[in-house]
């Protein structure tokens, strides 16, 4: 019989009188990779919190590594030795890999540090998984993927029986993700258990041993590996969200196929990558949705930096930053001020003339709802925040919008909403450039895909070839049905 590592039994967790997790049941066995697919965000953060700290429960029991660590009767508030790897890195940038793995972990008691010894101790761990890093390298010099591996190693070295990975696919490239999956399998064989959280079914499909579906703070279904292989879409379609998403993508693809394409160059992207010592150049066509996948994080950072400096000068261009509901909301300002922030570039007198703001309010009330205008921006729901940011961009009347990882961190319900907002931009004839690492959602809108490789090579993939992108793409059957296979060509 397999050893049980985690059991959450009938767990109900409330915070500020709100039920966050309800009748939540989850079992993870030794050496198992359990996938988790959240359809909406409710309960996700609370689950991670409960796994790490034994907070008071309203009902239920939690067992970890054979011991009852928390129950509705008694909660100790102690920490469980469970590793959690998230988008927000828990590594200290200015310190070495060895320091982060050994010294900065719970349970490290040795006061005097022997650096050479630590470096030597780390090498076998790195060698075991084929990572080419030296223990004395500072974390600030590592790529995002290497950082994820360092966090993973820290958990492994600490002997955490369960390691949680939340939305790592949004941070690293396809190839790196594949490598990570191999490493996780390696450790799973050695007895480590994983909870792999991702809003993309195709990322978990065929990689996880089982997948748990989470909606409204409840696990509503757990499917084993065998079912994933045989009835992938049937299982996924149980949820109405996904049916809606599939239909939207299908309609969009049909609609775009019927539209006439002019292939008129709107602008040519030109930048110099200092990392590669190479010039990056590619055309952007008017009215297209261009997905750009960048495999090298440093190139991505350079492009983002260039966007943020250049777009300021270009009135016809707008940027929707990564995690916009955090990075693009002005707290303390009113909803109306937030909405009109970009408009002041076009209309300098917007803040003086209340009649202009009044007419904007009347125009947008039907789209955004009356009530939001009197709400504090911090009280808006995630959906309302997305709506506010995209409306702000539309008010600016741009000809091109650059979106940095637009779907990052969004659960399925929000992904559908973001998808609709992006389609709205396209419907208004705005060119959209989507800079992402994870292609799952981006490809459903894209007319073209550009892959920028680690060495700076730009590879263009037309829509006809999307089905052959070397990664599980959710709507590949739709693309296959549309046209005959094209051919990859290098630029």
């Amino acid at each position, binding site marked *: 019989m397999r050893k049980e590592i985690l059991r959450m039994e009938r767990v109900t967790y409330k915070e500020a009188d709100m039920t966050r997790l309800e009748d939540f049941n989850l079992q993870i066995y030794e050496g198992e990779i359990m996938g988790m697919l959240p359809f909406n965000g409710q309960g996700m953060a609370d689950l991670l919190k409960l796994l790490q700290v034994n907070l008071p429960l309203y009902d239920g029991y939690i067992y970890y590594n054979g011991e009852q660590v928390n129950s509705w009767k008694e909660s100790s508030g102690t*920490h469980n030795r469970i590793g*959690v790897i998230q988008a*927000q*890195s*828990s*590594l*200290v*940038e*200015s*310190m070495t890999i060895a*320091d*982060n793995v050994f*010294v*900065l*972990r*719970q*349970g*490290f*008691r*040795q*006061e*005097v*540090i022997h650096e050479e010894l630590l470096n030597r101790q780390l*090498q076998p761990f*790195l*060698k075991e998984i084929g990572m*080419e*890093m*030296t223990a*004395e390298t*500072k974390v600030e010099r590592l790529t995002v993927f290497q950082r994820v591996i360092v966090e993973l190693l*820290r958990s492994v070295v600490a002997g955490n029986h369960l390691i949680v990975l939340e939305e790592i696919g949004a941070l690293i490239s396809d190839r790196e993700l594949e490598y990570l999956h191999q490493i996780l399998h390696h450790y799973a064989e050695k007895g480590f258990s994983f909870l792999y959280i991702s809003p993309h079914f195709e990322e978990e499909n065929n990689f996880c041993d089982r997948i748990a579906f989470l909606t409204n703070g409840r696990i509503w279904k757990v499917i084993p590996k065998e079912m994933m292989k045989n009835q992938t879409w049937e299982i996924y379609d149980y949820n109405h969200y996904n049916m809606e998403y599939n239909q939207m993508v299908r309609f969009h693809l049909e609609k775009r196929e019927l539209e006439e394409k002019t292939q008129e160059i709107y602008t040519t992207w030109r930048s*110099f990558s*200092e990392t590669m010592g190479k010039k990056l150049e590619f055309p952007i066509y008017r009215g297209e949705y261009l997905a750009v996948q960048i495999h090298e994080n440093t190139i991505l950072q350079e492009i983002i930096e260039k966007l943020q400096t250049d777009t300021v000068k270009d009135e016809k261009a707008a940027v929707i930053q990564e995690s916009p509901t955090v990075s693009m909301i002005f707290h303390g300002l009113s909803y109306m001020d937030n909405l009109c922030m970009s408009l002041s570039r076009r209309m300098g007198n917007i803040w003086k003339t209340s009649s202009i703001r009044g007419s904007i309010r009347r125009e947008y009330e039907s789209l955004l709802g009356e009530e939001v205008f009197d709400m504090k921006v911090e009280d808006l729901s995630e959906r309302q925040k997305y709506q506010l940011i995209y409306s702000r961009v539309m008010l600016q009347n741009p000809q091109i919008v650059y979106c940095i990882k637009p779907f990052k961190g969004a659960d399925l319900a929000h992904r559908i909403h973001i998808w609709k907002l992006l389609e709205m931009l396209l419907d208004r004839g705005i060119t959209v450039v989507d800079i992402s690492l994870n292609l799952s959602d981006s490809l459903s809108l894209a007319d073209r895909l550009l892959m920028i490789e680690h060495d700076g090579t730009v590879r263009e993939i037309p829509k006809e070839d999307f089905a052959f992108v070397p990664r599980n793409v959710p709507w590949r059957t739709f693309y296959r049905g549309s046209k005959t296979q094209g051919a990859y060509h290098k630029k």
Partner: protein
Amino acid sequence: MNNKQQSPVKKLLAIRGMGAALTAFVGLVIIYIAFGLINSAVFSGQNILNLLRSMSKYLLIGIAQSYVLITGNIDLSIGSMVGMSAMISATLMTTGMNPLLAILISLLCCLVIGVVNGYLVGKFKLPPFIATLGTMFVARGIAYMVNGNRNTDAIATGIGKEAADKFQNFFYYGKTLGVYNTFWIAMIVFIIFFFVLSKTRTGRHIYAIGSNVDAAKLSGVDVVATTIKTYLISATCSCLVGLILCAQAGMGNMEAGNMYEMYGVAAGVIGGVSPLGGTGILLGTLAGAAVWQTLENGLNMIGAQVGIQRVVIGVIVVVAVLLDVVVRNGKFGKRK
């Protein structure tokens, strides 16, 4: 595996903060030689000894402030703790108390201020500037009150000339191996705290908090305890400087240590300790303290006015911080 052997120079420069520390040392040599060329008395043996002794105070204060700065905080109460330490020890000695006991009581009082600072900043999350501004006034107030709002008499009046001489020689006037004791005291403290910062778990935790406090918490670092430790170290060093000033004057001065907290910031920052936290080594602070004292000494020797001395030192501090910010933001070496 990528196990390329690094050259010793590269290895040395790879140590965090070493580049800035070495730059400060190079700056020190240049400044010293420049002043020496203007006035050869700068090179005299007695001047070097005096220089080392005066530098020691700034080094101790620099160590105190550097520890706190590396965690991303600041300690504005250092100067007042220096004054408090000087006044408490002097007052107690003028009453005839054993100097050793007086020293211990002074240290205890400073440690109390350190603990309060640590709790306010670490536990109650008060902005360090505000928290230590408060304790700065409290400590200075105690320095005033301890002897009824006036400076003390000579300590010899209480403990006798012999004991007073012993005390003064131990902390200031005495020499060991031809160098003033003040320097040796500072060096011993420097070696201990250099080791703690670079070779111990506590040291790593201090850097981790300054670099990314959230990541440090997630990594199991006890942020409150570590913050308290840094303020305790700061209090200990401040107390030592207070005792040195007391020994130097042979009495307690209520204004002793005035502005020393800023000298500490300057010594650290010139040596590459980042006021934004997470970077810097005490070797840099040593260089910073030496640069500071050499500038003061050199400008004095060439007859520069006090005003000019302040302007020059102020400009150097600003340039050092500016360099830190520019380097952190990676503004160097970027193509337009």
